[in-house]
């Protein structure tokens, strides 16, 4: 039977980070209430009990700005309209400054069982550069509080390729993080997204060059591996069994419904998205969607996504593409970009670093 994931976008932030291009508006209590009502309304519209829903993901923005009651309301509505499995992975993204022990306890009680903490770095000067309002110590406290509140599946985000970041300072951050009670780490290379305040020469000129970035990335992969966090995707690492089930839906072409302004869905054979307009989402009886791809999960797309995962692509599943791809791989193997083993292709860490080019060369 098909399974389903639900993504809820919470587009509110106390303060917008200068590097971020996810959709968010400034936090207003009354607007958030209206927004939650709209989410609930849409969940009824999308009601689907034909599939098992086994992941829910509150992303943002800053979902931890919701009160535990609001999170509970949404999860109750999901329970009413979908077949939520007993062991469903229910993730909420949290900013360290927005949570305390009590709130975390209540979130846990409301049903959230996985917390993704936007920790970014354990070096205060790096946090300041990123425009984060919390300190390293505050982040550490948020994680230990979450652990104390009963979270057994905690993830944190780390940013690499920051100005003046050295292998040493990166090691320092990763050492501190991996000594905390966490099971999952997302390690992202900072990218200056167009339209963000970081999209300017002043910032770009101080970021590490590609060679340094590559060194930092490979250092991260190695260190986390040594600490028991295996790389399972380009930017994701986990202790065994703690890979993000929701995010894996994206890489495996599985269905997910996105609710909220700017949310994306892949559902019933179509990809679609909702406009980045808060008021529009709140006011409409049903969110307005735009079909972005009427025919998703073609071989190209499937392979593109699968090759982001360490487990890679099984060519036996695609006999008609097999020979074409096999012809192209010797040079990639020789360069150390891919592993090839019994019709199975996967990217190495060096390959992940240039995965756009490798995938484009192999598949497109």
């Amino acid at each position, binding site marked *: 039977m098909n399974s389903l994931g639900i993504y809820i976008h919470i587009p509110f932030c106390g303060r917008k980070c200068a590097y971020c291009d996810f959709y968010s508006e400034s936090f207003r209590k009354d607007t958030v209430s209206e927004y939650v009502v709209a989410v609930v309304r849409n969940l009824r519209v999308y009601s689907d009990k034909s599939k098992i829903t086994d992941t829910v993901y509150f992303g943002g923005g800053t979902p931890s700005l919701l009160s535990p009651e609001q999170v509970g309301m949404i999860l109750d509505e999901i329970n009413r309209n979908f077949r939520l499995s007993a062991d469903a992975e229910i993730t909420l993204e949290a900013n360290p400054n927005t949570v305390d022990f009590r709130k975390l306890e209540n979130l846990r009680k409301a049903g959230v069982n996985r917390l993704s903490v936007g920790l970014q770095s354990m070096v205060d000067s790096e946090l300041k550069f990123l425009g984060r309002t919390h300190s390293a110590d505050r982040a550490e406290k948020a994680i230990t509080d979450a652990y104390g509140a009963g979270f057994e599946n905690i993830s944190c985000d780390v940013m690499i390729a920051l100005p003046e970041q050295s292998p040493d300072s990166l090691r320092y951050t990763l050492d501190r993080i991996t000594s905390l009670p966490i099971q999952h780490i997302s390690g992202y290379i900072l990218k200056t997204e167009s339209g963000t305040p970081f999209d300017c020469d002043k910032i770009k000129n101080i970021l590490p060059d590609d060679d340094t970035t590559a060194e930092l990335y490979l250092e991260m992969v190695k260190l986390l591996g040594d600490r028991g966090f295996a790389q399972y995707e380009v930017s994701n690492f986990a202790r065994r069994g703690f890979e993000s089930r929701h995010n894996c839906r994206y890489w495996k072409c599985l269905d997910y419904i996105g609710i909220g302004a700017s949310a*994306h869905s892949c559902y019933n054979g179509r990809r679609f998205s909702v406009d980045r307009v808060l008021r529009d989402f709140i006011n409409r009886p049903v969110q307005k969607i735009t079909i972005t791809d009427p025919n998703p999960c073609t071989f190209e797309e499937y392979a593109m996504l699968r090759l982001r995962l360490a487990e890679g692509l099984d060519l036996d599943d695609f006999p008609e593409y097999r020979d074409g791809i096999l012809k192209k791989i010797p040079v990639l193997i020789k360069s150390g970009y891919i592993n090839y083993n019994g019709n199975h292709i996967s990217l190495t860490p060096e390959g992940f670093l*240039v995965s756009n080019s490798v995938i*484009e060369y192999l598949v497109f």
Partner: protein
Amino acid sequence: MANQKIRNFCIIAHIDHGKSTLADRILEKTETVAIRDMEDQLLDNMDIERERGITIKARAVRLKYTAQDGEDYIFNLIDTPGHVDFNYEVSRSLAACEGAILVVDASQGIEAQTLANTYLAIEHDLEVVPVVNKIDLPSADPERVCTEVENVIGIPAMDAPKISAKMGTNIEEVLERIVTDIPAPQGDTEKPLKALIFDSYYDSYKGVIIYVRIKEGRVKTGDNIRLMATGAVFTVVEAGFMDADKLVNNGSLEAGEVGYIAASIKSIGDTQVGDTVTNNDNPCDEALAGYRKVNPMVFSGIYPADGAKYGDLRDALEKLQLNDASLSFEPETSIALGFGFRCGFLGLLHMEIIQERLEREYNLDLITTAPSVIYKVTLTSGEVQYIDNPSNFPDPALIQVAEEPMVKADILTPSEFVGNIMELCQDRRGVFKDMQYLDDTRVNLHYELPLNEIVYDFFDVLKSRTRGYASFDYEMLGYVPSKLVKLDILLNGDIVDALSFIIHTDKAYGRARKIAEKLKENIPRQLFEVPIQAAIGGKVIARETVKAMRKDVLAKCYGGDITRKKKLLEKQKEGKKRMRQLGTVEVPQEAFMSVLKLDS
């Protein structure tokens, strides 16, 4: 007897010295063009001409002027190309005139081109009427310039009209001088037809229109004419003169007159500039002197950036050739660039103009190879080959002697830049001949230079080293033996044929290194390391490496926005299609172009 009220003349001037402006003023004063129809610089029709302030193709226009003696005169103003590339066209235009107005800038004085063309005019026995222009400029020094004209050219100039074409000052004086100083045409209207072709162009309705100066006899509608060099015979459909903006079919032309003939001529190749037109039924004894076929001097491969546009490029070249018989092209194949054409040009400017017109008027995106001259190679077998494509350069073991074309160059410059210029010419293997002071501050330097040293960027560098003050002109001298080698560029171990060129052995290393550096700058990092090598024969003399790319990854997917990621990769793929795939190496168009400008 030819009409004694006709004056046939041209204007000689350096770029920017005001030829077109003066022509406009003359047109205006003779009321050939109603003022409201005046567009700035009327004679220069092509966009490129107007932008560069130069005249590429000759034009002619007939004007009516009532002189101070009360008589009506017919002026035929023949506009000449100003550039050395079109030297032969200039000489044919001059041959159609009895006089030339020499326009000299009142602050800048005589320039190299002016000098060359003035000497050409004197050779053709033209009456030269000096005119000092731009007297309105604060830096104008007409007296000094007049002295310079007298000293350098050796014609009286102290009473030359001092004018401002821009402000319209003293234009009447110029018009009177045309009447009084320039002789009326000679020629017997009763003799068999003898007319000089000094220009032609293709009109899609009338076929080729030829511009002629009737030297003897007459021609009228219905006559059978013969073009003596090509032997082609046509029946005249129209004969008349050129108004400022249209052809006026007069039905006939006679000795002394300048006009046009339309005769349903399909190919411009039949109507070569310098050829003689005669009456097929009553031909003249012999053709006018001075006809020669113009040969291209500079060659370059021209390829469409998008291989699918090959047909469009061919069509565009064919259309350009309709108006420009001096452009030659033939299909050529490059392993690196695919299908294209090896094109021959009169010179550098001609090459640039053609490339620019192809890109601008025909909207083509081009890749051009480094310009080459024609090398003369005598093989050990005694066979002589002329090589215009480096790919065809024979194996050194088979070469008995290789020769390259030389030019004689005149460089006019303020004396403070002499040192810079000598350094440049020496660097370009120039041989200093002599130096002549035009006045206290200006110098004419004579050099012999290999043509292949000036086809790249000589003019640009000369300009930059003299803050734009030096002017430059050259003429062909002939071939001299030279130590020439073929330099190959290899990417990832494979020769890129489109980047090969022939060079003097002493210059090979320096250029090889520069090219390797330029390529390194312009070839993006790719999945694999790309070695760049320059080699002569099998010997590598320069090396650079484009390191493998280290980072090309989308770390994060926006909340499950897979479509965005997919589009990104599709766009990346699309971008690579614009690159040339050479083995495993992807080479962008800019890389090919970057090696053409090594000193900038």
